[in-house]
């Protein structure tokens, strides 16, 4: 959520994936109720099956969901550990402020008394 912080890329993907309320709902549903296929998810999501598949692709890219093929069906499950970088806001802010402190000290060196 703050540029130039460690673990930023993974966090960006997670935030981007979860910025959409439909994707949040799909992810929350999977996290709460366990593995589902696209058809079951579509019945709950209130959008078309291709739209659900597209959302799942984005969630998968962010490593928030994993897929498992079984015959002609694909089952999706939540990977809540992918949320860790996002939930660890204090850790992110610690890295952020240490970096800013460095910038502050460098500015102070350049400033007149």
């Amino acid at each position, binding site marked *: *959520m703050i540029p130039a912080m460690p673990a930023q890329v993974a966090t960006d993907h997670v935030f981007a994936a979860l910025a959409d309320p439909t994707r949040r709902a799909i992810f929350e549903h999977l996290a709460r109720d366990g593995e589902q296929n696209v058809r079951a998810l579509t019945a709950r999501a209130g959008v078309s099956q291709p739209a659900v598949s597209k959302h799942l692709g984005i969630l998968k890219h962010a490593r928030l969901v994993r897929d498992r093929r079984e015959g002609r069906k694909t089952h999706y499950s939540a990977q809540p*550990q992918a949320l860790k970088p996002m*939930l660890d806001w204090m850790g992110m802010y610690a890295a952020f402020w240490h970096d*800013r402190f460095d910038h*502050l000290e460098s500015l102070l060196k350049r400033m007149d*008394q």
Partner: protein
Amino acid sequence: MTEPAASRALVIEREMPHPPEKIWRALTQGPLIEEWLMKNDFQPVVGHHFSFRSTPVPGWNGVIDSEVLVIEPNSRLSYSWGTMGTTTLVTWTLTPTKSGTHVRMEQSGFRSEEDAAYKGAKYGWTKFIGNMERIAGGLD
């Protein structure tokens, strides 16, 4: 992830070989703040609403909404720090030492319950994060 919200604070402290007056300028003059922190329209006036602006990234507009809460020249500065549906409090404390200044930054109030209820309704984020914390509760 399960500690009471009120106890959650981040503290960073450093000794700096500069007088408090000089550090105070870096902390409270907009163009100087921009050099080490972010673009801003800060004014050293209690009650002044302002924002820090950073480069937007997907899922975050880069804006931090703030209000000046405490101004004690050369010693204490406090402002709110609101972004992504969560408001925290940032407090700077400057203490003169023999060789310069002890600089202490405390950011507190991470995810308080009342904030979650208020901002969550506005952004739809905090409730989600609360739910996810419960689901991800087993993660270290």
